């Protein structure tokens, strides 16, 4: 096969150069061969994948036309509910949980005969930046398996970067789509809060969580975003995509587009990462875009604000795991209270417990005003600061992560140091804005570097357009050696 993009595979299916069953089988065989090295998938669904593929082949045999995503093999992060398919959040507390309904995003894709190959690895409850907080062990980086895939959607990024799926859906609460996409040298987009339904996404921090695409290229991200961004009455914060499909404006000229660089985003970023972003700015200049520098002092509040608010919401959301209605339940206990405590203490991993404790602390009497309320007000400050920034530029250019993928087991042991890796990604979640990570270089060891393009609310079309133009001009993407051979 010489094609790995959605539109190309779609043409091959339509022209009967390959059957959907052959395409699906190629991915299933690659999973069989390579998942042992990458640990991207935690549940494989070969039977239902081949069943869907057979249905697509029958349609094609009858001469019917098929949709763009029809018959394309893909994956979902294991916190997106799939009716009848185990969904674990990579936590012991949900190890045998089988949802009885579909998340809206999966319902939308399933209706289009998307071929689900399986569910992918993640940090437990999406809490982490290395995927190593998974009860199944971490997913590995397809560019070098001695390095992490990133997190929390590490499994999706590893699968897509390792060609064990054409595309996947992840979730992004503080960078969980963009950071692993950056580490694995691929594309990941966090849409505007409300653009994509959260119904059926197992909650971490509800005012931050957003589902989005992880793909090898910008065009695929646009295709998938168009397919999943619809108003949904099942999510009270849903607004759907505002405006026409983003695919229509993807390749527009960007002459005169203003790209802003906030100086604070480059502070403390590793030299090679900063240089790669600066080189990307040069590429933009050569395309006729204008680069404007500005100050965004409120950025210094972003990380503590994020951890206070996200953990507060998590402590409330994770209150539902009591062993009574679903999930793991302690074996022996004296009374109901003891049962709930034992269930939670054994079922949750260390990082999850730490965040529940922090969240409970900042919400508890005596501390609420100093932490939660103050953080909420600074969230307002950040929202205004970004809103002001978009008066002088169309999109903002920034690094995705201050470094590249670290080696397995080398996530920093100091908890605050670990959280600092999220410094460039959390502002977008705090403000609800859309952000996309695209590859913009490689470090001395060959590990990918990513940059982020941030847009104003519901301006996915603009960031995808800017990302596509850069990708097309710079040609940075290098496929990894794993998976279906291209």
């Amino acid at each position, binding site marked *: 096969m010489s094609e790995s993009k959605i539109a190309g595979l779609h043409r091959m299916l339509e022209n009967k150069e390959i059957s959907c069953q052959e395409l699906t089988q190629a991915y299933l065989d690659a999973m069989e061969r390579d998942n042992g090295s990458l640990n991207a998938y935690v549940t494989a669904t070969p039977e239902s994948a081949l069943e869907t593929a057979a249905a697509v082949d029958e349609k094609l045999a009858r001469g019917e036309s098929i949709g763009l995503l029809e018959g394309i093999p893909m994956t979902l992060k294991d916190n997106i509910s799939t009716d009848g398919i185990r969904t674990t959040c990579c936590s012991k507390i949900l190890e045998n949980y089988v949802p*009885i309904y579909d998340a809206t995003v999966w319902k939308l894709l399933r209706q289009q005969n998307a071929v689900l190959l399986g569910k992918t690895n993640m940090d437990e409850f999406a809490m982490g930046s290395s995927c190593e907080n998974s009860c199944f062990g971490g997913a590995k980086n397809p560019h070098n398996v001695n390095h992490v895939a990133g997190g929390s959607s590490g499994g999706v990024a590893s699968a897509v970067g390792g060609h064990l799926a054409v595309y996947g859906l992840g979730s992004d609460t503080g960078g969980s789509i963009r950071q692993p996409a950056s580490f694995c040298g691929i594309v990941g987009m966090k849409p505007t809060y409300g653009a994509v339904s959260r119904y059926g996404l197992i909650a971490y921090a509800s005012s931050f969580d957003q589902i989005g695409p992880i793909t090898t290229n910008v065009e695929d991200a646009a295709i998938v975003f168009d397919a999943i961004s619809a108003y949904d009455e099942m999510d009270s914060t849903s607004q759907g995509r505002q405006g026409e499909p983003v695919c229509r404006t993807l390749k527009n000229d960007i002459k005169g587009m203003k790209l802003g660089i906030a100086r604070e985003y480059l502070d403390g970023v590793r030299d090679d990462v900063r240089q790669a972003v600066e080189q990307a700015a040069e590429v933009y200049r050569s395309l006729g875009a204008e680069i404007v520098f500005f100050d965004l002092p409120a950025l210094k509040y972003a990380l503590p604000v994020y951890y206070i608010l996200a953990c507060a919401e998590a402590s409330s959301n994770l209150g539902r795991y009591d062993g009574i209605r679903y999930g793991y339940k302690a074996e022996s206990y004296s009374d109901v209270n003891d049962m709930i405590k034992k269930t939670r203490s054994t079922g949750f991993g260390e990082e999850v417990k730490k965040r529940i404790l922090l969240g409970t602390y900042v919400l508890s009497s005596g501390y609420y005003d*100093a932490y939660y309320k103050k953080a909420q*007000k600074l*969230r307002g400050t950040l929202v205004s600061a970004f809103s002001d920034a978009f008066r002088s530029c169309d999109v903002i250019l920034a690094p995705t992560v201050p470094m590249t993928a670290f080696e397995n087991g080398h996530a920093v042991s100091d908890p605050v140091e670990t959280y600092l890796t999220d410094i460039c990604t959390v502002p977008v979640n705090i403000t609800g804005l859309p952000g996309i990570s695209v590859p913009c270089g490689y470090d001395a060891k060959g590990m990918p570097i990513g940059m982020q393009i941030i847009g104003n609310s519901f301006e996915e079309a603009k960031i995808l357009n800017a990302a596509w133009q850069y990708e097309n001009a710079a040609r940075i993407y290098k496929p990894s050696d794993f998976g279906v051979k291209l």
Partner: protein
Amino acid sequence: MVTKEEIMKIAILSKLFVADDEIDGLTEDMGKIIAFADTINNAADEGTDFDHINHLSNVLREDVVVPSLDREKILANAKDSDEGCFLVKNIMK
């Protein structure tokens, strides 16, 4: 500075047990995280009122009964159920 006693109290509120051999490490980690969170209290910025991302307001609809999830299917995920209900140890003696 966060104390062991505070961590124990928060653990009770969170319905979590903290083992004796975990408490020292956890207190140290939490101390670091809370000291970091505390940086916002040194902010000269008073902040701006924040209602909700995208300034959403409630969406109202008619209260119409629509099909819901099947009881048997819901109970299938519970470790213990009986006569169409979730089963827990008696709460009142």
